[in-house]
């Protein structure tokens, strides 16, 4: 039986931010604003969550004018279950919900 994984408060805050609207795809900068995390902290967390199968990622469809395609993130079913299991540990979001992409 696998041992329960102990997430940090920062990881929990990312899970909570993604769980706010689990059907939506989020940008990295949106997540950074919601959680108050710097990019150097946020992305290693996203990488670990993706490697654990809790977050899925994809590139924005189509080539937008004047900027590169952005990477989008969403909880998997397993990630949603983990996020729902530990709402109390999630750090409160420091910013309001930003732009989201369906």
């Amino acid at each position: 039986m696998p041992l329960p994984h102990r997430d940090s408060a920062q990881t929990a805050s990312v899970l909570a931010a993604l769980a706010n609207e689990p059907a939506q795809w989020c940008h990295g900068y949106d997540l950074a604003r919601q959680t108050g995390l710097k990019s150097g902290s946020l992305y290693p967390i996203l990488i670990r969550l993706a490697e654990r199968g809790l977050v899925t990622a994809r590139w924005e469809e189509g080539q937008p004018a004047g900027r590169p395609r952005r990477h989008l993130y969403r909880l998997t079913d397993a990630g949603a279950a983990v996020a729902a299991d530990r709402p109390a540990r999630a750090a409160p979001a420091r910013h309001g919900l930003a732009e989201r992409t369906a």
Partner: protein
Amino acid sequence: MTGALTRVLLAVLPARRRAWGEAVLAELAAVPPGRPRRAWIAGALWLIARELVTLPRVALAAAAAACLRLGWAPGSTDPATPIQRVGLLAIVVLLAASPLLSRARGDLGAVADSRVARVVRAGGYAALWALLLVVICLSGYAGARFEHRSMTPANAAQWHSERVGGAVSGSLILFGVMAAYVAAILWLTSRRSPASPATLALGGAWGVMGGILLYALMPVGSPVLPATPAAVDRLLLGVGVVGVPIAAGVMVARRAATADDARAAGALAGLLTGGAGALALVILTIPTMLLFPSHVPLKWANPDPSVPHGTRFEREMSVGDAADKYMGFLLLGPLLGITLGVVGGALTIVEPRTDDPRPVI
């Protein structure tokens, strides 16, 4: 951040992380200019740095720095030292840059998809760094007789010329040997390698065991241990030098489908056995000589019986000369191993297989 810098940073990231590097940089357009954008760039650089500064890379950098620090010999008055520094630098660059070839394609490129190949490649690299460290320590000990001593050569110009000439040829030979071992390790463990995991495992293991056997018989370069009869020592030496590569060739060749394949498999196993054995022998024996120089057989620096024997100069010279012969094993070992491995392959009776499509080599 310029596009060129971005491309460079992304190119040096491991392939599995490149998309994440692109992802964090793709967000830049959405980040407001000024402090938030600078903070985002700093975070992106931190993310990339974390991926680049891995434990193997730190170990590699530490090994390179330690070898350069130990081998640089600041304040040396030996005319050979500047040349030896260039040679040392070239070898450090060679060893430090070799892992980059692991990303390349081709005969010297990415490591084969087997645990044995990864272990042999990593072990081979580690052994070459150890060999370089041994050479540096040997040079420091045996070369000390040319430093700050009251040595007054009869013909100073000729002595200077011989020292420089010897350093040039010695550095070139050592670099060539190192480059050959690097190439052999990369080739034998690459995806296009003709050597199967079994050949790598058997050849490497038999080689290391043979090297340890020879070291146990001659720990400081003496051909015979005083505690055992000479005939026994010679027999064991014969087993270590001749028997081990032949045995490795036979064991590997038994898996071959044809007589030609058996000889080829024997040659590969012999190459591995000879190379691994020579590395193990040199890496063990020379440090033992340096730790116990008084046990190394002395050579007369001056045959005049009125000149004192066993001086510090003589010890340094004796250790240096004995160790040079061992360095010759690095060239001789693989060549002898190939020859004896082919003999082992030729001695193997191959039964044609019709139902077993195993890899022949």
